[in-house]
């Protein structure tokens, strides 16, 4: 990952144009913003964005990914630079590992367990202990990834019910719904999950791994990049559930930040800005990494996670999913 370069969050309808081999963002209020191309790592579009091929080819040449979120915060797609990190050796090992049921299950099991523990950590409660114990006994008996996903689903349902106890009534999830999310809490979680997925995808693009060859999620899972879904799992509690709980406790979210309709909800314009600011701040948070012996940001943790998988493929180092140590 480039040491320099920022994520730009486009929360308003705008137009991306190429100017002097750099990027100009035209906004509805008429004031264009010029962004130096070398300063962009990726662009995340929350709203309608107009982009043309000459701008896209410039983005591609500079290795910038453009992520698009739809109105309800689902990851609608991304425009990625033509592959430059490609390595047949890594991809071949990745395919071999995922085709080998034992190896695949080992990674999938650790992903499910770690995600569950991360959720317990992020909610910081003992209420999840029985569910976690049940999951710990159930996971070793699972013979395929579908069964694992089922067990994970059970645990997540309990987790969300517990999360609801920390939230004000209007923000409660009342059961996770998506496509579209039915209430404010679900809309928030959807947006955060899509953002984590986008971050993971950006990180995977900077490694030779193929984002579609995953360990845990089914190969047919909405035809998405299953490896990115896998890697996003352990990070979702750190961002989605934890931020929701904190934003509710600090009363940062207001009902006017959401556009609620019958049976569907999404973030309003101000809500999008607020969420973008929340996530940006969170991604920049640093912790001391004990092996690297230096401060790393949450954003970099995601990148390190992708590198762990490269190491699994090339050196056979057992993969230990991310777990907060602080």
């Amino acid at each position, binding site marked *: 990952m*480039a*040491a*320099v370069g*920022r*994520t*730009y*969050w*486009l*929360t*308003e309808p*705008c137009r991306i144009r190429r*100017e*002097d*081999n*750099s990027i100009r*963002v035209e*906004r509805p209020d008429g004031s264009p*913003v*010029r*962004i*130096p*191309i*070398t*300063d962009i790592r990726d662009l995340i579009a929350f709203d309608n964005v107009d982009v043309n091929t000459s701008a896209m080819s410039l983005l591609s040449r500079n290795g910038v990914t453009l992520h698009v979120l739809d109105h309800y915060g689902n990851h609608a797609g991304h425009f990625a630079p033509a592959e430059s990190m490609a390595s047949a050796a890594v991809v071949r090992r990745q395919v071999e590992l995922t085709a080998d049921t034992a190896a695949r299950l080992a990674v999938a099991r650790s992903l499910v367990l770690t995600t569950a523990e991360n959720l317990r950590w992020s909610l910081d409660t003992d209420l999840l202990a029985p569910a976690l114990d049940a999951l710990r006994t159930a996971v070793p008996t699972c013979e395929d990834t579908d069964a694992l996903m089922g067990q994970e689903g059970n645990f997540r349902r309990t987790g969300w019910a517990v999360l609801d106890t920390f939230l004000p009534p209007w923000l409660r999830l009342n059961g996770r719904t998506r496509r579209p999310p039915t209430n404010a809490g679900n809309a928030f979680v959807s947006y955060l999950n899509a953002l984590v997925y986008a971050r993971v995808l950006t990180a995977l693009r900077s490694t030779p791994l193929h984002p579609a060859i995953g360990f845990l999620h089914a190969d047919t899972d909405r035809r998405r990049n299953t490896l990115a879904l896998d890697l996003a799992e352990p990070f979702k509690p750190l961002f989605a559930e934890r931020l929701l709980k904190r934003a509710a406790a600090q009363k940062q979210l207001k009902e006017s930040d959401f556009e609620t309709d019958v049976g569907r909800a999404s973030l309003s314009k101000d809500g999008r*800005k607020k969420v*973008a*600011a929340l996530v*940006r701040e969170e991604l920049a948070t640093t912790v001391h990494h004990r092996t690297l012996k230096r401060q790393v940001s949450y954003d970099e943790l995601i990148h390190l996670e992708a590198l762990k998988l490269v190491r699994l493929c090339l050196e056979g180092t057992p993969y230990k999913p991310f777990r907060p140590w602080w």
Partner: protein
Amino acid sequence: MFVILVYDTAVERNPHVLKTCRKYLHWTQRSVFQGELTAGQYRALMTTLGTVIDPDHDSIVTYTARSPDFIATSTLGVSLGGPGDIL
């Protein structure tokens, strides 16, 4: 590194210098740019600028610091630079 770049060039060469700087740095004021660069990007920028200006007449000054944290900035009057990274 964090770079502040100030240029004072002849009118006919201004647009060229401006365009080159826009590729690497954020515009802060009429002839002032700032931003974070890697050492390589900084070198690339300076080399390109070197080919654009007339060394007998024009002048470009850069101030560099290891990180923006080392520099305190304050503005009087209108803030002309961009709105940050949430657009």
